[in-house]
């Protein structure tokens, strides 16, 4: 069974540009989560999508946005990039929402570098 996949592996952008990161969940998973892991900081929750809708959002500015497609894959968009957006962005997926209790499985991540 294929795991969570993410693309691209690496992305280099300049300040002010926009970045688009992509994620495909494990087959059968409908929930997709995005996390940011900046150097020296732990994993920070960004966004949660399920069934095409944004279900929860972490403490990040509105220039971090995303969407989930009918096939449950997801995009994370970061507008007006700032140097401190440089980080590893991890996508995770889990089974359907409900009372919780479903483990999240992570993809390999996209390393975003903003110069």
């Amino acid at each position, binding site marked *: 069974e294929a*795991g*969570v996949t993410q693309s691209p592996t690496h992305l280099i952008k300049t300040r002010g540009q926009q970045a688009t990161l992509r994620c495909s969940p494990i087959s059968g998973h409908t*929930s997709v*989560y995005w*996390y940011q892991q900046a150097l020296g900081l*732990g*994993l*920070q*929750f960004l966004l*949660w999508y*399920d069934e095409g809708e944004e*279900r*929860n959002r*972490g403490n990040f500015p509105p220039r971090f946005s995303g969407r989930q497609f009918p096939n449950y894959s997801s995009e994370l968009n970061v507008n007006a990039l700032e140097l401190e957006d440089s980080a*590893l962005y*991890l996508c*995770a997926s*889990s089974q359907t*929402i409900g*009372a*919780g*209790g479903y*483990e*999240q*499985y*992570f*993809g*390999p*991540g996209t390393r975003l570098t903003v110069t």
Partner: protein
Amino acid sequence: EDKVVQSPLSLVVHEGDTVTLNCSYEVTNFRSLLWYKQEKKAPTFLFMLTSSGIEKKSGRLSSILDKKELFSILNITATQTGDSAIYLCAVEAAGNKLTFGGGTRVLVKP
């Protein structure tokens, strides 16, 4: 604000040693506690704990949760160099949000 604290920050052991990693938390609407191992990029899932006092085991790894004292421990026995990694503790709260601790970096020397 939800908070997860892991200790120690890092430790160095020799092959065959036993390590105990700690995770304490303060979370509203607790649902579960998860342990992950992160070697290079993707954290890999180890355990999910939802009930107090029930030990989960997988090979040389085991973990237990204490919901009264709000902590969990992860034990690794007979450590091997392949156990070298960052071990992450995360707590799931309402809204399916995982709050991660800062991790414990484990280095196992031959």
